[in-house]
């Protein structure tokens, strides 16, 4: 198999080499990247812009003043439902305390058990104001399944993790981004319009996304 493979590679690359010389491609046009860099927004606008996008996407948003208020909000949202969560020390605001004495599943649990949870609870590495996106970098203790399997996803966002554009985030956290084995950018609830273009939520991923933004 190895031999056959390296032969295919050689064949393809030879063909490509011969072709790229003959390729009748259009000229490279003059371009300007000036206008494309982010239009830096004042800090106070970040939260507003983000909230506006969340509204458009149908993401339920709560902004809380302090840690205590975040936890109280979370307790109300969770009620007595079962939870698939990031490891407690990966959650901001000591939110793990809210989970005590509940049905909580983690990364180590079997995926069928994980899939049975009502709510997925995660933090978030960045929130992008321009598009209303949550950026989740995968890693140990931050199971990708938590934002994927349950029908409801609750994400806790620190205000300091809000960026205006994706580029702003990539510029600042390039190293973390390059080391993650999976970067998930989530923009609203799972949706489809395959049947007569009529919008339906919660096809495979969560049909409901809730964010709690703390200080």
């Amino acid at each position, binding site marked *: 198999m190895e031999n056959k493979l390296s032969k295919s590679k050689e064949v393809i690359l030879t063909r*490509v080499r011969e072709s*790229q010389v003959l*390729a009748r491609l259009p000229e490279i046009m003059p371009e300007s990247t000036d206008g494309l860099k982010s239009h830096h927004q004042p800090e106070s606008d970040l939260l507003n812009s983000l909230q506006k996008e969340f509204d458009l996407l149908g993401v339920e948003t709560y902004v809380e003043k302090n840690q205590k208020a975040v936890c109280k909000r979370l307790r109300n949202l969770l009620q007595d439902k079962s939870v698939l969560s990031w490891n407690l020390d990966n959650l901001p605001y000591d939110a793990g305390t809210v989970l005590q004495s509940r049905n909580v599943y983690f990364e180590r649990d079997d995926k069928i058990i994980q899939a049975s949870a009502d709510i997925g609870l995660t933090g978030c590495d960045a929130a992008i104001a321009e598009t209303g996106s949550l950026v989740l970098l995968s890693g140990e203790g931050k199971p990708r399944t938590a934002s994927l399997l349950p029908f409801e996803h609750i994400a806790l966002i620190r205000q300091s993790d809000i960026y205006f554009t994706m580029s702003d985030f990539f510029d600042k956290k390039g190293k973390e981004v390059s080391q993650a084995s999976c970067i998930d950018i989530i923009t609203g609830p799972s949706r489809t319009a395959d049947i007569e273009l009529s919008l339906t939520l919660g096809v495979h991923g969560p049909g409901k996304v809730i964010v709690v933004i703390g200080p």
Partner: protein
Amino acid sequence: MSHFSDRVDKALADDNLSEALKKATSQLVSRRSTAFSSLEDAENLRDIARNTKMKILHNLEDNLLKFEKSLQKNGSHVHWAKDAEEANNVVIEIAQKQAVKKIVKSKSMLSEEIHLNTALIKAGMQVVETDLGEYIVQLAGDKPSHIIAPIIHMTREDVGNLMHDRLSVPFSDEPEVLTRIARRKLRQEFLDADMGITGANFGVVETGSICLVTNEGNARMVTTLPKIHVVLIGIEKLVATFEDLNRFLKLLARSATGQKLSVYTSIIQGPGKGTETGPEEVHVVLVDNGRSGMLGGDLAESLACIRCGACLNVCPIYKNIGGHAYGDTYAGPIGSIITPGLRGLAQWHELPAASTLCGACKEVCPIRIDIPKMLLKLRQVTPPKVKASISLRMAIKCFAVIAGIPKVYKGFTAFGSRLLRFLGSKSWLTNNIPLLDRWTKVRDFKTPAKKSFQRMWQEKIAKDGK
């Protein structure tokens, strides 16, 4: 396979289809234009995206080698496949090595192109499509008919009947109910599968990242739950850096569905690390299957296509005949280049002819691909048709003689228009005009006006002269 004109006839005779196409394409067109209005500096962004792709293609060999290195650095296995058969065999070998029985797939045009499902099923494996539209297509034993809306040709009743039939569930024509049924059925498949297969929207050369975009989340399921993830990627699908990727993502979602960003953008950079959830193995198969040949000539520019489907929605031909009539994986204006490009012109020479060359496709293409120019190029090399019939050739010769003598021409047209008016029962003639019957079989032919333009003109001069 059936003849192109037969497929077109069939499509045109299908009232459901034309209704569905009209509704869907016009909605997608208006969503796209609204979405672009929210993008600052969109035109400049399109220029940059175009340049980025051209630079990649100019230097594809180097880029492929760099991409391979980056992938390996991330811990992914890299395979090369020069044609469909090799690509299918690579996937089968990976699957057999791990005794894979059930495979879940996220939508991939490339896998359609190489008929991967057929090959896997033949090798004894079970394959399940998980994009809602593709799942329905698979249940129906049908083929997708639009790049981003695979069942644009089906009504909700069609889907309801199909699910009732194949999945033994009560009939419903509510998209909400039908979607819930699919969620339940497919959730089990995701959990049971040993292997996930996806295509790739983009491959990032610098970082060895595979970018996948969906709205449903099925690509995330496919790349998270099974222990093996296989990526099929065409050798042309590369961008250089993360910054490039970011720009293409902005264009892709707006062009395809009118969103600022699709719901799920997953950037995969190797297998899960340590105790992390995610596949234990990631295999990337770089597939040529005719692309390197297209690179060396007039069709090279079409390799910049990002498969957004925008050119389908604006095309007056696609809007009328839909995707199936094109006869292969890629429909619409861009398909009329890619299909002959990949599979050879001999069998597909009718596709480039099926265009009005109105240029709407080029206008909406986020990469500004000059589709009409390439369609014309393909027409130039289209094999000469069988000689026209003797009667037609004679008629044209007669016409040449008559048209050369103004007086005779005038006499003939006056006679001709009188005759046609006489033949036409009302103001329309159909079916019976000798020599024109192939045209009039499917179209009405307006009878000439009572007064010709020339006559009106002369009368006006005479009147004004007084």
